[in-house]
């Protein structure tokens, strides 16, 4: 009889779980797609890395969760067994695949996949999977056995290397664009689709040295910063900001239009995220139709500046933006009024409907006279810093005699500046009287009202200001694309924005920005991943909810840290009195 508490049984259980995850990745086609990418060129592909990491993680977790005895032998045996089981399950999968044609049901269970899994050795090569699995599991348990001091820099280094490998194509392109020494260095460090072996080696040494040094020194550096006189602290901060500003200004020129465009999209989502963060994060009012305000901003600018058939006024972008923001605010109030008394789940459904109504109306034949229906609005005048020549003729953009924000490389500055402005406004609002009122409503609406907070006014302001942020985002989106179609205002934009807030940390401004980078920026940069974007979204959301429900960068800790510095100095030590 197997004792259910036996550590071997535990290891097998986790190994089976790892194996199931590996088979799942294989069957949805991830392994096959990812095998086209290298982590280290000619050594390990991204697909291999995923499977090995699965085995190693199941080894690690099995070792961590085994409770019998924490001796080195049992640890290693547990890890190896878990990895072996993971490999075994995959081997079984390969064997079944070689006997039965699984393709009738699972499209991705192709011979190519089985070749990949067995290094082209066919079903007989399945034994290899056992070996690799066991090895990976062993590595996992070894990693657990390492003292915290070594493990942390090591895992950080591996994660960093992995990240470098993912983005190596980008780095390579950017550096080759610089020509000269940079181009040569790029070819030495980065291959076509991953790091070169030498590059991986160099990065490993640099990062390992840096992280192990940093873990010892970070406190010291923070301490010496705190000991600096106030003037010195300001100087340090100014230098830091100057460096960041310089990077931000120079970036699109170095990186080219693709990365600039990705950053613009991240900024747009960050703006929407910061807007929804006011209604949902601060005031606790769920809004699943947030894209509506984005659409209002976009259509207003489109209609006011387009030289196409639906253009109304042909005014300049700069004049159209304030109008667009005001229009979004108006729509925020229009949405807010009827749903003021609606709470919780009902509010979610009501706002969901609002978002869909706006999209359907904009794309409908009924209003096609005004909004272009499914054809959308085209020919939107780009923003121009300088004077536009007098409007001459329809169908021809007006000529700009100054700096024209023609492509992503220029609109980058517009988007970044707007995102920073909005983050600043959100930050000021958060610590204001209004911000506190919003949070009070989020915590307990009745009590907030009983403390003298006017619910109608305060909730409406949350909708209106949130809508303003999204409207500005929509306005910039319009000039980035140069056209608007109702079909780009889909429900999944709203869902993305909600996901950004949840992953980043509800109510946290840096969290929302981080969330936008993680959920929008990374998938845009990793073209291979974008096919599985929603699967990865789902996995990320579930893992976040289980492991870190407060988000990547939760708000309260920061808030309390700030408060600590502000208030603690002029009060005595807290008297311990229950």
């Amino acid at each position: 009889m197997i004792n259910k508490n036996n550590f071997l049984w535990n290891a097998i259980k986790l190994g089976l779980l790892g194996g199931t995850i590996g088979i799942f990745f294989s069957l949805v086609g991830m392994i096959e797609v990812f095998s086209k990418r290298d982590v280290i060129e000619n050594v390990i592909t991204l697909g291999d890395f995923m499977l090995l990491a699965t085995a190693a993680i199941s080894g690690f977790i099995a070792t961590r969760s085994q409770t019998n005895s924490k001796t080195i032998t049992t640890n290693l045996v547990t890890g190896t067994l878990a990895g072996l089981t993971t490999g075994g399950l995959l081997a079984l999968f390969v064997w079944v695949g070689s006997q039965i044609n699984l393709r009738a049901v699972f499209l991705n269970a192709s011979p190519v996949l089985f070749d990949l899994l067995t290094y082209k050795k066919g079903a007989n090569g399945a034994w290899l999977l056992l070996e690799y699995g066991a090895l990976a599991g062993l590595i996992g348990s070894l990693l657990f056995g390492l003292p915290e001091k070594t493990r942390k820099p090591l895992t950080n280094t591996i994660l960093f290397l992995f990240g470098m490998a993912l983005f190596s194509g980008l780095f390579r392109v950017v550096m080759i664009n610089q020509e000269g020494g940079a181009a040569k260095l790029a070819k030495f460090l980065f291959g076509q689709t991953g790091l070169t072996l030498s590059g991986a080696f160099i990065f490993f040494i640099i990062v390992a040295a840096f992280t192990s040094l940093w873990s010892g020194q970070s406190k010291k550096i923070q301490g010496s910063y705190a000991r600096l006189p106030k003037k010195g602290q300001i100087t340090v901060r100014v230098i830091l900001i100057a460096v960041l500003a310089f990077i931000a200004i120079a970036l699109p020129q170095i990186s080219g239009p693709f990365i600039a465009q990705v950053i613009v999209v991240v900024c747009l989502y960050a703006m929407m995220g910061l807007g929804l963060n006011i209604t949902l994060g601060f005031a606790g009012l769920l809004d699943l139709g947030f894209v509506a305000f984005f659409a209002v901003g976009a259509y207003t600018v489109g209609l006011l500046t387009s030289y196409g058939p639906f253009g109304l006024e042909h005014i300049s972008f700069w004049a159209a933006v304030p109008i667009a923001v005001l229009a979004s605010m108006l729509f925020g109030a229009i949405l807010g009024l009827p749903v003021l008394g609606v709470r919780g789940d009902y509010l979610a459904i009501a706002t969901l409907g609002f978002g869909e109504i706006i999209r359907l109306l904009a794309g409908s034949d009924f209003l096609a006279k005004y909004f272009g229906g499914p054809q959308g609005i085209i020919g939107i005048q780009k923003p121009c810093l300088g004077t536009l020549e007098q409007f001459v003729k329809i169908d021809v953009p007006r000529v700009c005699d100054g700096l024209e924000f023609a492509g992503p490389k220029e609109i980058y500055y517009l988007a970044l500046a707007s995102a920073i402005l909005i983050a600043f406004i959100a930050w000021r609002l958060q610590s204001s009287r209004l911000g506190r009122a919003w949070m009070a409503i989020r915590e307990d609406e009745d009590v907030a009202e009983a403390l003298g907070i006017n619910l109608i006014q305060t909730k409406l302001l949350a909708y209106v200001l949130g809508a303003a942020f999204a409207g500005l985002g929509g306005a910039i989106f319009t000039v980035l694309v140069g056209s608007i179609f109702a079909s780009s205002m889909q429900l999944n934009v709203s869902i993305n924005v909600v996901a950004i807030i949840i992953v980043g940390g509800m109510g946290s401004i840096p969290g929302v920005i981080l969330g936008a980078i993680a959920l929008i920026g990374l998938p845009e940069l990793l073209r291979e991943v974008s096919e599985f974007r929603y699967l990865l979204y789902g996995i990320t959301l579930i893992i976040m909810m289980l492991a870190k429900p407060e988000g990547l960068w939760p708000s309260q800790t920061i808030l309390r840290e700030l408060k600590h510095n502000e208030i603690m100095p002029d009060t005595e030590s807290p008297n311990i009195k229950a």
Partner: protein
Amino acid sequence: MTSILTAKKVIKRFGGLVAVNSVDFEIPEKSIVSIIGPNGAGKTTFFNCITGFGKIDEGEITFEGTQIHRLRPDQITRLGISRTYQNIRLFPDMSALENILVGQHLFLHSSWISAVLSTPKVRAEEKMALNEAQRLLNFVDLKGKGDMLARNLPYGAQRRLEIARALATQPKLLLLDEPSAGMNPRETEDLTAFIRKLRDELGISILLIEHHMRVVMGISERITVLDYGEKIAEGTPKEIQNNPRVIEAYLGRGAATEGMANAHERFADSKNSKSN
């Protein structure tokens, strides 16, 4: 003596149930008044009627000459009525200091635009608000706990913080809903002294719902007894202690023959031992 709050023939129904039935009631200025009654007698419902949480069906409530029974809760608070809750209702994920700052909402006037611009006026106002919040924290003996999250405070501290938050609205009338619930005898004694201090030093009228008879009899100047939504007695503590209808309501007919004070002591003690 003029009365700060007057209720006339107040009726509150929930469907077929009459929770408050034609109650006349008044609170003299700068006095401590209690409402007592068995569980389900309509005490908290009556509280909710005064603070605007539930609209009354008939009758009228006036506060300092103004009719308040048709106003929203925030408007009633603006006039000068504030309350605490039977089950503590702080903002759990905000710090103690922020809880009090929310209470000061009515006295801060900065618009959101000036807050974004952080004008000197806003900064001065925020600084004043912070000082006031600190002062209130010290007043309820929570000095130095300002940056703790409300939900991390110990029970007694949460009760005191709730009172501090209510005081931040600068009330003329403070409604306390079972403030001594869950407190031990020493804490209860401190609380009694604290309530007296509120009235004597700040001149705030107090309306109390309380089960703890030692507290009620100790500090109330007048007591109103509710039973099944109806007022069955009113008077000084002494009068109430000897009122046979009250004894009957609490303990049944047989108990009316026993000494009321004794019975109440026993009643209070048995309640305490249950809740401990």
